[in-house]
């Protein structure tokens, strides 16, 4: 083993357990953050995902200590840090615009938190070198920020935020200003650093794909509130609200009235045949309440609507008929837009591996899915739903 391989950073500290309890922050009449409670386990990578203005960045600022919440508490390892000033929190922050100090070199930027902590010069130089190695910027320490590319600046910002081994690392859309290629490379790098240092990370982004790639868990924000927290798979397969379903990937949403009286529970939507559903025990809508059925496009099987020769659906299956409006070739498959009798336009997705049925615009088709493949939720009808 060579000496350069041992020179990267290794963390000796235990990663932080971070907890928000009922945190709220209002700006005038607008609640930027509204009763947010969340736990981030030691070493976890949690992403706050939401549209701009949904409160995710304010949440991050509250954790960092830049903004004081009106209510609630922030805890780090069971210790309330809500009123602790930012410089005593021991939390690293990577900013969207990097916030590198322009009058200091890369090495001086990285040494800044060590100097603030009174680390002796010798140890400081070693740790700066190690941090530069961790972000693959060996030998760039003497450059000023303006002499570095966007990606390199971001790495310096990252090195500066981890060199003092904070208990928690916060990242506020750190890739917002980078192009797609660079973003993907840095995503992998951040994941590697997360793995190697075992640090607790709270990451803010509006990029759904980025959240899916990097996170252990994702918290979805809307209007200052967390709508749902879970792994990417949980959020995708068991959304607890129509908002989450529509935020995470494509979905077909059928609104109707829930009828659980028969052998098979159904949702009755206007101008469509009743849709058989398999409600989740804990989230079963009440009889007669308005409900939404969420069907992912890739769960729908698309066949030509031929009067003869089709066996029809099984007991738990659904069939809707419609007319193909558009076929979009995606490379990895095809997306079909199908007009239904109720006038709505629905999506079905067929993977490239499946045989191309040769369906085209104007063809009459059947959309078939098993009721177990759909999610049914109690949900207000779309007209009454509060949307942004």
């Amino acid at each position, binding site marked *: 083993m060579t000496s350069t391989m041992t020179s990267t950073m290794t963390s000796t500290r235990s990663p932080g357990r971070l907890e928000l309890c009922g945190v709220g922050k209002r700006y005038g009449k607008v609640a930027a953050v509204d009763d947010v409670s969340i736990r981030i386990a030691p070493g976890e990578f949690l992403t706050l995902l939401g549209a701009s203005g949904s409160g995710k960045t304010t949440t991050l600022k509250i954790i960092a200590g830049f903004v004081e919440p009106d209510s609630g508490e922030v805890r780090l390892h069971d210790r309330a840090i809500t009123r602790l000033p930012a*410089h005593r929190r*021991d939390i690293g922050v990577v*900013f969207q615009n990097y916030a590198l100090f322009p009058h200091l070199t890369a090495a001086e930027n990285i040494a800044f938190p060590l100097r603030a902590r009174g680390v002796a010069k010798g140890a400081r130089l070693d740790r700066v070198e190690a941090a530069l190695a961790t972000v693959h910027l060996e030998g760039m320490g003497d450059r000023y920020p303006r002499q570095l590319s966007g990606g390199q600046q971001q790495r310096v910002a990252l090195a500066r935020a981890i060199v003092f081994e904070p208990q928690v690392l916060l990242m506020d859309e750190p890739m917002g200003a980078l192009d797609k290629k660079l973003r993907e490379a840095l995503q992998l790098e951040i994941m590697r650093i997360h793995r190697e240092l075992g640090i607790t990370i709270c990451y803010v982004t509006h990029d759904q794909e980025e959240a899916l790639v990097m996170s252990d868990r994702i918290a979805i924000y809307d209007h200052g509130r967390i709508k749902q927290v879970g792994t990417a798979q949980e959020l995708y397969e068991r959304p607890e609200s129509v908002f989450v379903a529509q935020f995470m990937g494509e979905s077909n949403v059928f609104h109707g009235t829930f009828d659980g009286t028969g052998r098979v529970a159904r949702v009755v939507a206007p101008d469509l045949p009743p849709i058989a559903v398999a409600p989740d025990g804990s989230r079963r809508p009440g009889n007669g309440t308005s409900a939404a059925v969420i069907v992912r496009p890739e769960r729908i099987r698309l066949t030509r609507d031929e009067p003869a020769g089709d066996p029809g659906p099984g007991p738990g299956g659904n069939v809707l008929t419609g007319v193909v409006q558009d076929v979009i070739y995606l490379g990895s498959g095809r997306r079909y837009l199908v007009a239904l009798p109720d006038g709505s336009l629905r999506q079905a997705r067929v993977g490239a591996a499946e045989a191309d049925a040769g369906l085209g615009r104007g063809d009459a088709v059947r959309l078939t899915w098993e009721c177990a493949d759909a999610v049914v939720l109690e949900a207000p009808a779309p007209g009454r739903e509060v949307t942004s």
Partner: protein
Amino acid sequence: MRRIPWKGGLRSAVALIAVFLLLPTLVVIPLSFTEGSLLRWPPRGFSLRWYETLLADPAWRDATLKSLEVALWTALAATAIGTTTALGLTRGRFRGRQLISSLSLSPIVVPTVITAIGTYFVFVRLGIVGTTAGLVLAHTVLALPLVIVSVTNSLRSFDRNLELAALSLGAGPVSTFFRITLPLVAPGVAASALFAFITSWDEIVVALFVTDPVVRTLPVVIFNQLRSGVDPTVAAAATLLVLVTVTALGVALAARRGLKT
């Protein structure tokens, strides 16, 4: 770039205005090198004798040194007070911020002679007419708005995230100010110090009111000389005034440019 048809005309107009503004100043400079003992155009011959007088005559020499002293103290005081005021006005969130902002800029708006009369009456009460400290105080009031405006601009264009970053990295507010904020707004602060220096250096109105025959600045002596026997020393003194002002202005502009890059 497209050629604007009236560009030539614009150029000549600008040149004319520049000549109009600068000519009176520029005429004085050759006069200061005259051999003759009369302040008359055209100057005769070339000599440095009036500069000798300027340095040798105690009245002129003392006034020059006093002007420098007052201008330096004014620059220091106005920069310290103005920078902290600008910080408070840009960063603070308190009632009456707008009022304080307007009040601190009022010396620009109020005619100088009004300020001078007011200052004089107050200084008589305090018994500080004719003192260096009094003059510094009066000039500091005049220079403050320039410093506040200049530093406020620097602070407005300053990225607040840099301060938040420093805090998150463990530096306290004081350490953050001296290691991040101040170095980055330093060019703006330096420029405003030079503006404050110039303000005091060539100030005459307030100085006339609050100086006495013992504590006199260069502009006051020039003014008094013009009313009694005029000799070309006045031109030499005026040239010195212009030279120092132009130098300070050049440095200030260079500092500002340094801030932008």
